[in-house]
């Protein structure tokens, strides 16, 4: 059975039956342990504000809400009528033996019950739709807003956390809206209604009942509740610790085995496991007490009503029918108190979830279009950085006073050690982040003055790790330009040298790619990314060469395709291949966030600076030194090895 079914059914509002002298099935504690075990009670920071926001969404379902409110009030009233009519039936018709009257009353009761069922059904039916529409709207808003957020946001939040907001948190809100709210309203109404009817029926018996049952119930929930909460907190802590150990160990299981640490890990696990058992036992025992103790109070209430009622009946202060009615009212009176306590926790959790959702929606879109942003049509491709400074985190500068100029059509190679700032330059050009000071211009225009969409449309980006979406190969290439025809897609694939391998796939261009595209090699994925960029036909290119080696044939294909792609476009390449670097019009050597050297391969070597050093360090392992390599080259020997990775990095 899928989860939603059992969960919904456990929480389906239970219309109190007319006669109940024992808790149905498991009673209040029944579904409890599971729900508690997994989800600790959370507390919202600003419940009022969050509720107001939720109301903004709910308002759109006004008609459904109004109907549901009326229906809840009506069903609560009708539920109160049940036991009352029962009392009447006994006193007025059964005891005197008025069968004709009994038939009439039975018909009336049947009508009341039928109406109750009908209204309950309608209210659940309508509220289900209203709740689902509301959460769908919240989900849409959340997702749409996330699309406007800058990369910084995605860097700072774990994907799992963002996913859980969109699913678990929203799911929680939905459940509370669909069920808990109506349950709460119904509980409060029936509490007041029961008290009123009891007082009306027989105030003496009502007082006796009301003084005992609810107070005991309240005491019980408080006493057990307090201990349970403390227990669950401890249990949650122990569970978190144990799960942390499990996750870490299993993730590093191969290291554990490689170092023969199985016994040590098991000892650590057993310690945490024992702690969880201890905390869990305490929490579960106390929470488990709620059920039987509630049952006890109910039975006690029954005894009081029967005893006191019986005494009053003999004293002429009550009738048999009244006792029958009170037996049910007494139970209805205790039930909502416990329900309200439970619902409070559920609703708190949901509000805390809603708070997280709204927090995301409120996240300011860091990079946005300026009010006077201009469109950008075709570009010539002149790119200028003027004294650009940037930091991801305040106080940790990543780029310091970087200035550079790329003429239209030039190839600019970015070279330097890991973490030097190469990728950051790319991130700033595409405006994934905004700079703190300085200016970046394309064709003389500050990129902050250009419409973001237009800017990015003119920039083609091929990243190291090609991301493919679920869909066909055709759709994945078309991601570069959504209105491209099939012919255009195929033409782009041909230029990217991707066509041959695509045709060898089981369904050619219609082959479905899986989420992480396990069915393609890394090289093939890169070819698809190049095809995507060719199709997009950008004015400026940003390429991140792959560091890991692919097989030699694919490697050649990739290089060829990249060259074709770069032809006639200004290209920034985070370079890892010597060929790319040698062919570049400009090499920018970046270290610690600064451009420390610039020039061509030859001029930089002649400078005998950082680049020279970087270049030469590749040969140390060879023991031959740079001079020998250069001689080899001039003499027509294969050139000395420059590893894939004169500038390792991502």
């Amino acid at each position, binding site marked *: 059975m899928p989860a939603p079914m059992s969960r919904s059914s456990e929480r389906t509002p239970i219309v109190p039956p007319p006669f109940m002298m024992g808790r149905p099935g498991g009673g209040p504690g029944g579904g409890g342990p599971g729900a508690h075990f997994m989800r600790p009670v959370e507390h919202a920071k600003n419940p009022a504000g969050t509720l107001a926001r939720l109301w903004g969404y709910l308002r759109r379902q006004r008609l459904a809400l109004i109907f549901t409110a009326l229906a809840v009030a009506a069903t609560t009233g009708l539920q109160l009528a049940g036991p009352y009519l029962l009392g009447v039936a006994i006193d007025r018709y059964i005891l005197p033996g008025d069968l004709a009257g009994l038939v009439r009353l039975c018909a009336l009761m049947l009508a009341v019950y039928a109406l109750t069922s009908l209204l309950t059904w309608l209210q659940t039916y309508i509220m289900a739709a209203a709740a689902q529409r509301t959460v769908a709207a919240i989900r849409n808003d959340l*997702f749409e807003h996330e699309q406007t957020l800058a990369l910084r946001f995605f860097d700072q939040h774990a994907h799992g956390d963002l996913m859980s907001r969109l699913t678990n948190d929203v799911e929680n809100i939905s459940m509370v809206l669909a069920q808990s709210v109506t349950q709460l309203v119904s509980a409060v109404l029936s509490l007041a209604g029961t008290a009123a009817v009891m007082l009306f029926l027989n105030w003496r018996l009502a007082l006796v009942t009301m003084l005992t049952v609810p107070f005991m119930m309240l005491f019980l929930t408080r006493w057990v509740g307090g201990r349970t909460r403390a227990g669950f907190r401890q249990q949650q802590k122990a569970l978190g610790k144990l799960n942390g150990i499990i996750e870490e160990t299993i993730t590093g299981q191969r290291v554990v085995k490689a170092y023969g640490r199985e016994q040590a890990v098991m000892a650590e696990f057993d310690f945490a496991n024992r702690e969880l058992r201890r905390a869990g036992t305490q929490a579960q025992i106390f929470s488990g007490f709620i059920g039987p103790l509630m049952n006890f109070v109910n039975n006690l209430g029954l005894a009081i009503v029967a005893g006191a009622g019986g005494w009053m009946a003999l004293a002429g202060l009550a009738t048999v029918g009244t006792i029958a009615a009170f037996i049910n009212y007494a139970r209805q009176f205790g039930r909502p108190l416990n329900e309200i306590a439970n619902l409070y926790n559920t609703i708190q959790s949901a509000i805390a979830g809603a708070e997280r959702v709204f927090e995301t929606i409120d996240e300011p879109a860091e990079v946005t279009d300026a009010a006077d942003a201009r469109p950008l049509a075709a570009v010539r491709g002149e790119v200028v950085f003027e004294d650009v400074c940037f930091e991801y985190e305040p106080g940790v500068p990543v780029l310091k006073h970087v200035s550079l100029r790329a003429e239209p059509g030039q190839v600019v190679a970015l070279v330097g050690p890991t973490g030097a700032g190469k990728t950051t330059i790319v991130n700033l050009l595409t405006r*994934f982040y905004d700079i703190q000071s300085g200016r970046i211009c394309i064709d003389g225009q500050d990129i902050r003055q250009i419409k973001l969409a237009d800017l990015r449309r003119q920039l083609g980006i091929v990243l190291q790790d090609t991301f493919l979406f679920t869909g066909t190969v055709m759709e994945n290439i078309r991601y570069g330009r959504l209105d491209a025809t099939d012919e255009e897609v195929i033409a782009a694939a041909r230029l990217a040298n991707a066509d041959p391998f695509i045709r060898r796939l089981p369904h050619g261009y219609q082959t479905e790619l899986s989420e992480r595209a396990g069915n393609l090699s890394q090289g093939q994925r890169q070819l698809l990314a190049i095809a995507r960029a060719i199709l997009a036909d950008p004015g400026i290119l940003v390429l991140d060469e792959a560091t890991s080696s692919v097989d030699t044939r694919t490697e050649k294909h990739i290089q060829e395709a990249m060259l074709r792609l770069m032809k006639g476009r200004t290209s920034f390449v985070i370079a890892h291949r010597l060929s790319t670097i040698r062919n570049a019009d400009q090499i920018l050597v970046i270290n610690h966030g600064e451009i420390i050297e610039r020039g061509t391969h030859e001029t930089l070597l002649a400078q005998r600076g950082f680049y020279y050093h970087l270049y030469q360090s590749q040969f140390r392992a060879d023991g031959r030194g740079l001079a020998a390599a250069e001689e080899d080259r001039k003499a027509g020997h294969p050139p000395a090895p420059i590893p894939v990775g004169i500038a390792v990095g991502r």
Partner: protein
Amino acid sequence: MSATRRLARFLKPYRHWAVLAPLLMMLEVAMDLMQPRMVQRIVDQGLARGDMPLVLHTALLMVGFAAIGAVGGTGCTVFSVLAAQGFGADLRSALFAKVQSLSFGNLDRLETGRLITRLTNDVTQVQELVMMMLRIMVRAPLLMVGSLVMAIFTSPTLALLFVVLIPLVLAVVIWLINKSHPLFSEVQRRLDALNTVMQENLAGVRVVKAFVREAHEIGRFRKANEQLMQQNITAAQVLALNMPLVMLILNSGVVAALWLGGVQVKAGSLQVGQIIAFTNYLTQTLFSIMMVSMLTMRLSRSEASAERIQEVFDSQPEVVNRPGALAEFAPRGRVAFENVTFSYNGADAEPVLKNVSFVAEPGQTVAILGSTGAGKSSLVHLIPRFYDVKEGRVTVDGIDVRDIDETALRRQISIALQESVLFSGTIRDNIRYGRPDAGDEEVIAAAKLAQAHDFIMSFPDGYDSMVGQRGVNLSGGQKQRIAIARALLMNPSVLILDDSTSSVDVETEARLQEALAAARRGRTNLIVAQRISTVLSADQILVLDNGQIVAQGPHARLMETSPIYREIYESQMER
């Protein structure tokens, strides 16, 4: 329920509690069942005859029954919790120990993420099931049968109503379960579809932004969201019928009992108190039926968890110590492969290594080169016996690794794995992971050798810096160097670096290699590499292609004799 039944063995140590809990629950149910009977006595005997002492006496009796019931109920809670918690802890512990005994091959198949779920969620599910079994699963059926018997006892004629009511309730519940099951499966499918859109959007956020495809993504999401919403509504609306229908049947039964009872009261064959008691039993019976059917659905969910757990217990470790395996082992470090063929899966699977033979002499550095998927990692994983060969043999100092105790072997053969996993704790703890008793000087020496000392000292807490979620942020290259220090601290006879410098920058890597070469003192080094610079100075280079050694020898000779080596070499070069 077979998987669940097989897990029942973990309940054995707690069988006394597991028997006691249902017994106490029986007591509670029995006491509950007495209550309507007592009300009936008050009405029919006390009130009808004006017998005040009987009324009070009976009321006191009710209090007594309630108290005894409470003892039963709370007692059941205590014992069922003790049994379930003990069961859960033992199961978890056994499962964890089982995972520790598994070999790499098993781990590959079971998958990390799914193993974690099994140890956490699935165990919790089954533990909850045990608790339910001992309480609600006892209570609901008992209450059902008990109420039915009491109802028949109270009034056999009225009890004829059950002939109509029970089948009706059952029909409604079963019909709804059947109808809603496929609907909710579809909800799950659509939820998965929505998750996929979201997941891809997050993972591919740079691509989305680079190609300005936000609107397209929103469109995709809206469509998936709309489809999920529609299905959710349909499913919830079908389920909305459940309670109203059951309540209608139940209440109709009550009204029918009232009317039939009224007729019999007039005829003098029934008393009012009996009607009151009967309607109570009737309600309880029907409610219990519903409860039992709901619980049955719940059981199928736990069964799925039990099956997943049982699957782990059923996996047999592929690598086990032979009887009489060599427990003490201090090799010089001569590693030899003799016609080794290896595949990850069954015998008919395509071999990953085919007929591989080579010898690494003590003190030699052997580099293994080849493209992704050529079999480099597979090859080195055979030396510490992470996997067993299919054919041929791997020997260390001439002894087949299968004849050496696993722990003794791995103490001598240290490997820095491709993905450098660190554990939460200090950097010091991580470096001495394999030898917790190592002194500080040794730790520092290993870190210096691995070119990790300088960056470690740049942290405010040095070697005491915490690693992990709440600790310092380590780059990929830094993690790799700590992993190498960890391997070096073992002071192994054979050191294997499995592409473990891929994120280290070239300069540092060159220094690392120099240091390793200088400090090797007769240690055999095996280095798996992607970069050609890493392999240049090796005594021997093995070029792997498609699971076979296609060239073998030092750099200079390979340049002359091996076209493949030259091709790899030149592919990274300008032509």
